[in-house]
Every structure is written in structure tokens, then in C-alpha cells.
């Protein structure tokens, strides 16, 4: 009966009706006037002390962005966004590039403590066994406040820092790889991001290095009316390996906030990148008021032979999610994986999925997507698997399942499966169902309450994906799923 007790405790220990990360931190911030003009772009670039080439790059993106129109093909509805009514930069005043943690605004440190993110290396050492250490880059609104374990990582040759720092310190790497996976004009939001991106993480793993610890970035939106535009660039050189985790939260606010990030991964010969996300932005209240618009472009390029990129995501937050972590399987024998759980409740709208573009020979990919829709939410899986004419021996397996809880939600599946080579083997299967009455009966007959039974069945449903997450995240993700489904029974 241990499992049952555990479930009850879990439900009790979490404040189920509240989004628990919804608090606001009072910090003094520095921000330009609202709105987006060339001056805003110049302001951001100047604040970051960027070299001339970077400013030009941003201005070019901004000019292109002005000629583009917002995409409308996804299955989400929202009132038009007024891009002139947003702040594009917000940085805590105190301790803008801190030398050590002591210079960081204590209010911010308190925030991360509340969120359970360890920023002090000794604390991390005290709590966790050395082999389970995680290096963290903490991004607060528009700036990275701290990156931990930098020294130790540097010894291994790993570069882990904020992207602003990388532009200063490693311009040759940034110039070489930035926008090489997601071109500046890839899509409306990616172009916007290119013009105004404020911070994010930069990772470079040199040849043959297995990154000695998990790397992690924690994104926090705090300010009102502020968009967060982060940019992450991860490069795994030949034979390197890295596991990267990303987490995000935001305070509860009545207005919608925009989050338009770009993440680029590059894996060279025999390299492997594992990218995990637990996305828990504020989803808005029960009536759909407030919440984050999460419009994100994530793409990995398996550029080298036998390289591998694996995306794992647990999506429970955001009012609207528009996100398709993809893999370009360019290198011969490369492999792409996508594991996703998208849980939507209330008035949330999720349009998410992946693209596996097979270009090299003997490339393989696997997609496991689980969508759970409750309340009045809508969940769409949109995916593409395509094999180029020369991608002989391409192999894909796709499984996307949807679970509906309640009769006011919707689940949709829109896969595109395109085989242009006759040697491709593609398998796709999808199902939609509700929790079986017999499963519920079985659980309840053994003494579980209705809610516990749902949680148990749902956890079983998503187990395949949870298994892919690193240990620390798996526990958090499991809890998140329980919170998100609270109140959806019946």
C-alpha cells in the first residue's frame, strides 16, 4: 500500500488549487520605454555592451521582422498582440554582472530559493552526492544572474555561460553557429527574437568531452508587461556528450506575457545532446485570464555522422503553447528523438509537436507524444516526418496518444508523413481515448479515491516519457502532472 500513501501525500503536499510559483519578487529594475523600434534594439545591444557586428545582426533581423506577418496556421486563438505595448528589456538594477553571488540582489536569491533552484555551490554540495551535481544558469527577466560551477566546467574544457558573455568572450564560436540552425527569418517569432533577444545560455562541449555534470538553465519572468526573449545555443563537438535541462516559471498576472525563445542545438560527428524541458509558465486562471504566450522555436541539427539529439519535454504551463522542437538529421546515421507530455487544463491551448527531417543516409528517429487534455483546453499534436530523396534507409517510429478528461476539451492530431525515398520505413500510430471505466473500477475497487486513480492511470500513460527525464526532473514532472489535473475528474 506504499504507493497509495505516497500518492495521497503527494496530493497533500502540493497546494493543488494554486499555481505555486505565482509569487512576485520586488526588485528594482532597469528598463527602456515600452515599444519596439530600432532604438529599442540599439538600447538592448548597448546595455549588453555588444560588438558592432552583433548590433548590425540584430538591426538586420529587426528590419526583416517588420516586413513579416504573424503566422496563423496553428490551432490556437488569442487576441492580437500589440508589440508596441511591451517592454523588451528588464534587468535587475542591483548587481548587473556580479562577480560573485554576494553581489546579487538578495531578493533574487530568495526567489530562486523559493523555486528550489540551488545557486550556491556549497549548498548543492551539501545536499546532493557529488555525481548528481547540476550546474545552473539562472536567467531573471532579461539577464542571466548567475552561472554556477563555471570553474569546474572550465577544467573539463566546457564553456557554460550566458549568451551575452559568450558574445564577448567567444565571438568566433557565436559567429560560426548562431542562426545556423534557425535562420534569422525562419519564422515571425524567431526573427523577433533575433532582433531583441536579451539573454540565455551558451554551451560548448569540446571534442571527445563528456560533460561532467548536468547543465541547467532556469528562466524566470518577473516583471509586468515584459516579454522574455531568450536565446540558447548548444554545440557538442565531435564525440562530446551533454545533458541539458531547462525549467521556467512566472508570476500570476492578469495580462498575457510573451515568451518567444529560440534554442539551437548542434551535434557534430558522434556527439550527443540530450535536452530536457519542464515548462511551467503561468497558465492563466480558470477563466483563461492572464498566462504566458509561449511561442518558441527549438531546433537541433545533427550535423555530424552518427550524432544524436534527443528532446524531452513536459509541458504543463502557458496559456498558449506553440512549439515544435525538431531535428534536422543531416549526418549519415544520425538519430533524433522526441518525447513529450503535454498536459492542458482550464482554458489552455497547446499546439505542439516535432519535425524529423531525414536528409542523411540511414537516419533514424523516434517520436513519443502524449497529450492529456482536461477542462476546456485544446491540445493539438502537429508533427512532420519527412525523408528526402537521398535519405535512403530512413527509419521512423511515431506514437502519439491523447487522453481526454471531461467533455469540453479537444484533442487533435495532425501528422505529416512524407516519404520521398522508397527505402524509407515509417510507422505512425495514434490513439485517442478516455480513461477506461474498467481501469478506474480496478483502482477504486482497491481503495483508491477517484482522483488518486486518475493520477495513477495518467502517470502510467506518460511513463514512457518520464523515463527519459533526468532523475531530478522526473520527480518534479510527476508532481506537476498531478497538479495540472486537479479538479478535472467527473
Amino acid at each position: 500500500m506504499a504507493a497509495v500513501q505516497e500518492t495521497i501525500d503527494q496530493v497533500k503536499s502540493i497546494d493543488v488549487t494554486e499555481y505555486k510559483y505565482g509569487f512576485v519578487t520586488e526588485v528594482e529594475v532597469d528598463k527602456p520605454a515600452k515599444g519596439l523600434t530600432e532604438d529599442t534594439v540599439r538600447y538592448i545591444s548597448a546595455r549588453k555592451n555588444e560588438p558592432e557586428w552583433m548590433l548590425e545582426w540584430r538591426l538586420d533581423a529587426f528590419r526583416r521582422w517588420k516586413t513579416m506577418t504573424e503566422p496563423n496556421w496553428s490551432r490556437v486563438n488569442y487576441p492580437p498582440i500589440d508589440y508596441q505595448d511591451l517592454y523588451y528589456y528588464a534587468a535587475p538594477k542591483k548587481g548587473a554582472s556580479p562577480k560573485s553571488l554576494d553581489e546579487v540582489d538578495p531578493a533574487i536569491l530568495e526567489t530562486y530559493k523559493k523555486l528550489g533552484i540551488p545557486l550556491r555551490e556549497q549548498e548543492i554540495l551539501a545536499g546532493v552526492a557529488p555525481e548528481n551535481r547540476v550546474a545552473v544558469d539562472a536567467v531573471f527577466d532579461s539577464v542571466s544572474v548567475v552561472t554556477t560551477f563555471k570553474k569546474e566546467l572550465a577544467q573539463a574544457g566546457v564553456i557554460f555561460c550566458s549568451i551575452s558573455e559568450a558574445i564577448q568572450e567567444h565571438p568566433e564560436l557565436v559567429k560560426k553557429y548562431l542562426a545556423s540552425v534557425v535562420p534569422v527569418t525562419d519564422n515571425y517569432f524567431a526573427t523577433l527574437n533575433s532582433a531583441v533577444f536579451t539573454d540565455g545560455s551558451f554551451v560548448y562541449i569540446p571534442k571527445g568531452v563528456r560533460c561532467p555534470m548536468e547543465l541547467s538553465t532556469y528562466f524566470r519572468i518577473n516583471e509586468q508587461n515584459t516579454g522574455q526573449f531568450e536565446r540558447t545555443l548548444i554545440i557538442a563537438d565531435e564525440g562530446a556528450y551533454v545533458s541539458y535541462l531547462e525549467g521556467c516559471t512566472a508570476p500570476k498576472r492578469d495580462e498575457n506575457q510573451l515568451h518567444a525563445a529560440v534554442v539551437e542545438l548542434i551535434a557534430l560527428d558522434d556527439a550527443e545532446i540530450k535536452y530536457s524541458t519542464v515548462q511551467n509558465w503561468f497558465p492563466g486562471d480558470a477563466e483563461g485570464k492572464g498566462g504566458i504566450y509561449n511561442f518558441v522555436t527549438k531546433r537541433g541539427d545533427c550535423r555530424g555522422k552518427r550524432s544524436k539529439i534527443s528532446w524531452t519535454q513536459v509541458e504543463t504551463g502557458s496559456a498558449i503553447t506553440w512549439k515544435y522542437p525538431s531535428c534536422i538529421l543531416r549526418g549519415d546515421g544520425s538519430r533524433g528523438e522526441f518525447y513529450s507530455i503535454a498536459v492542458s487544463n482550464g482554458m489552455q491551448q497547446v499546439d505542439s509537436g516535432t519535425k524529423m527531417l531525414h536528409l542523411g543516409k540511414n537516419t533514424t528517429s523516434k517520436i513519443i507524444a502524449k497529450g492529456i487534455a482536461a477542462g476546456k483546453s485544446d491540445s493539438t499534436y502537429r508533427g512532420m516526418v519527412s525523408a528526402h530523396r537521398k535519405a535512403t534507409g530512413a527509419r521512423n517510429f511515431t506514437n502519439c496518444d491523447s487522453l481526454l478528461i471531461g467533455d469540453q476539451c479537444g484533442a487533435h492530431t495532425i501528422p505529416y508523413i512524407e516519404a520521398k525515398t522508397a527505402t524509407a520505413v515509417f510507422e505512425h500510430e495514434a490513439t485517442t481515448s478516455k480513461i477506461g471505466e474498467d481501469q478506474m473500477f480496478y483502482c477504486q475497487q482497491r481503495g483508491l479515491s477517484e482522483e488518486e486513480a486518475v493520477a495513477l492511470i495518467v502517470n502510467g500513460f506518460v511513463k514512457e516519457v518520464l523515463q527519459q527525464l533526468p532523475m531530478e526532473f522526473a520527480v518534479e514532472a510527476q508532481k506537476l502532472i498531478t497538479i495540472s489535473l486537479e479538479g478535472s475528474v467527473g
Partner: protein
Amino acid sequence: MAIVTPLKTAAEQQLAQQYADAKAELPGGPAVRKLREDAFAGFEAKGLPHRRLESWRYTDLRTLLREARPLADGVKATDAVKARLAALKLDGLRLVLVDGVFAAELSDLDGIPEGVSVQSLADALVSPREDLTRILSGPSVGADDTGLMLNTALMRDGVFVEIADGVELAKPVVIVSLSSGVEERSVFHRSAVLAGAESKATVVEVSETAGDAAQQINGAIVIETGDGSEIQHIRLVTRQAAASVQVQSLLATIGAQAKFDSFALVCNAGTVRQQHFVRYAGEHSEMGLRGVNLLGGSEHSDVTLVVDHEVPHGTSRELFKSIIGGEATGVFQGKVIVRPHAQKTDGGMKSNALLLNEGASMFNKPELEIFADDVVCGHGATVAQIDGDQLFYLMARGLPRPQAEALVLQAFAGEAAEFIADESVRELVMSEVEAWLAAREANSQVSTV
């Protein structure tokens, strides 16, 4: 303010001219005329479907139809047409359209069974029936399709068959739509089959061209099945010039506790776009859409279907098998919609494709759109090659490679044709499949992947 005028292609301009010239003589009372006008206005606004329209993503009619051929005029019952009719071995109530016009003299009007009434669509269009607009419009999910709009605007003739309540037909109703193929022409025809409650029938549609000239055919069939009826619809699209382009729409509305099945075989038919729009009007009905596509050369076959579960307790099954060789392209786009309150819907959709050699392509897009929670819906899509193990098994028993492949392919295709209840129809379908495979085998063609 700038007025945006979309650039029209040559074909679009020709179609507009043809409609302007023909609309005075196209049959129909005021209601039908309005239907035509609205449909053509819809077409004019959108133009020929192209790849940026989601539902036509893989079949770009704007590129395929460089020029619209002149409208077919008058029945050309050539010797070739007569020879083809004589060669078609299928017993039943034979109704013949030549170049889209009902040919009473070639049809078997003496053999109309009791409880069945037959008239030409042209006659039906001018009749004072009040439900005509409803019947012709079909399910709402097809309403904004421009291919269908073009058919509505320009349909000239067809057959209008009514089967009375409780009538069970022992032999199939066979609608043979032959193009004379003497010249390159475009043909717009539509037929309707209204099956009464508790009726039972098999409706066969054959679409062929007797001559060598490539045709542009836009055909549609409306099927309404009454409560408790059992209707099977089998379509054969074959014997067309390689350059022919064809759009075939099925508009089906299914009554309560009814069984409806549709099957289509496409082979040697150039470019074919089939679109099935199906709506459940009553509860506890079962529906199946199936098909076999045998493609080679530069052929292109697109099967697009929209199944609209509007009411609870509907069951739907889709199974499409494609065998693709040469430089051919197969397309399957299936969409199953389960509306709110359509609880207890049971849907299963499957598309399987075998690619025989490099150059062949297959595009699958199986979609689910679900707004009800107590449902079981699934879909599967596969793309692969002939199973090496199966070939090995047969060749180890002494079959030469071409023969072994033919056997495996026949079994693969046959799975979709098994459900056809009328034995003579099933045999006809399988004989076409076998003939296609035999031609391949005779050329000692083997799979190269």
C-alpha cells in the same frame, strides 16, 4: 485603396469563359441556378486548388491543369465506347453516361427492378423537388472545396436513382461513366443515389475512357442512405490516358443504424484526386471507406477524406492500400472529426503503402479532430517496402521473384477488397488488380528496394 485582383491562370480564365458561355443552357430551375452561381462565385474567389491550400497540399491542380479543355458536347457513342461496354462483364442495372451525359439507349432501362426509379440528372435538376438543393449540397464538410464547387457550377448530367424503403436489390446498380476520348475534353457529371430506409443495394461506379485522348473529368456522386439501410458503393477508376486529370467526389450522408461502405480501386488512371465527404445523420451507424491504389509511371493518386461524426455511437473504419512504383506519387489525407456530444464514437483509420523502387513517393496525413471525451479513435500510417521475409518464404518454395512479389502484393491489396459483399463485383475488382500485377510480372519487373 488598392484593389487586389488575384492573377488568374489560363485554365481559370478558360473555366470562367466556359461557365459564362454554358450557364444559360446548363439544366436547372431557379434554385439550382442559384446553387451554380454561388458555387462558381466561390470558385472564382479562390481559384483552382493549389498546394498552399491545406486540403490540396499534395495535389496542385493549378499546376496540373495548365489549360482547361473545352466542355464535352453531346453523346459520342463511338465504336470504341460500344466495344468497351460490351467488354465490361458485370451483371446488374446498367446505367451509362457517355462524356458525362446520360445515354438512355445504351442503358438497361427495361431491367429496372421494382421499387427503383431512374431519371437523368438533367431531368431531376428541372423537376420541382423541394429537397433538391439539400441533396445536391451534401455534407457541410465538403462545402468549401473548390474542386467540388466547380462540379456544382458546371455539372451537366448524370443519373438520379431512388431506391424505395425496404427494397433489397439482388444485383448491383452499375453506373458506367465512359469518356469517348476522341478529343481532349472536360467533363462535369454528378449522380445521386437515394436509398430508402431498410433498403439494401450495391452501387458500382466505373470511370473509364474508350479512346486515347486525355480527359479532364470532374465527377461527383451523392449518396443518402436511409435508416437501417445497407449500402455498398464500389468505384473503379481505370483505363485513362496518362495525362488525364480527374477529381472524383463522394458526398455521403448516413442514416441511423445504417451500414455504408465505399471502396475505390485506382489503376492506370493518370492523375486522380478522390475526395470523400461523409456525415453521420443518425446514431448507431457503421461506415467503412477503403481503397486500393496501384500506381506506376508518373501517376498520381490522392485520397482525401473527411468523416464527420456529428452524432453519438458512430463507427468508422478507413483502410487504404497503396502500391507505388515508377515515379508515381501516392497521397492519403484522412480527417476524422468527432463533434462535441458525439460520444461513444469508434474510429479507426489506416493507410499502408509499399514503395517498389526509388522515385516512388508517399505522403500521409491522417488527422484526428476530437471534441468528445468518451471515444476510441486511432489511426495508423505506414510506408515500407515488400517484406523480405515473405518473399524469401515464397522463393524458398520455388516461386520466381516476380511471381512471389505478385502474390505478396495481391494479398496486400486484397485485404481492402475483402468486405465487398457482392461476389461478382469483388471478382471484377480483384481481376483488375490481378491484371495490373500480371502486366508487371510479364515485364519481369521486380522491386528494387
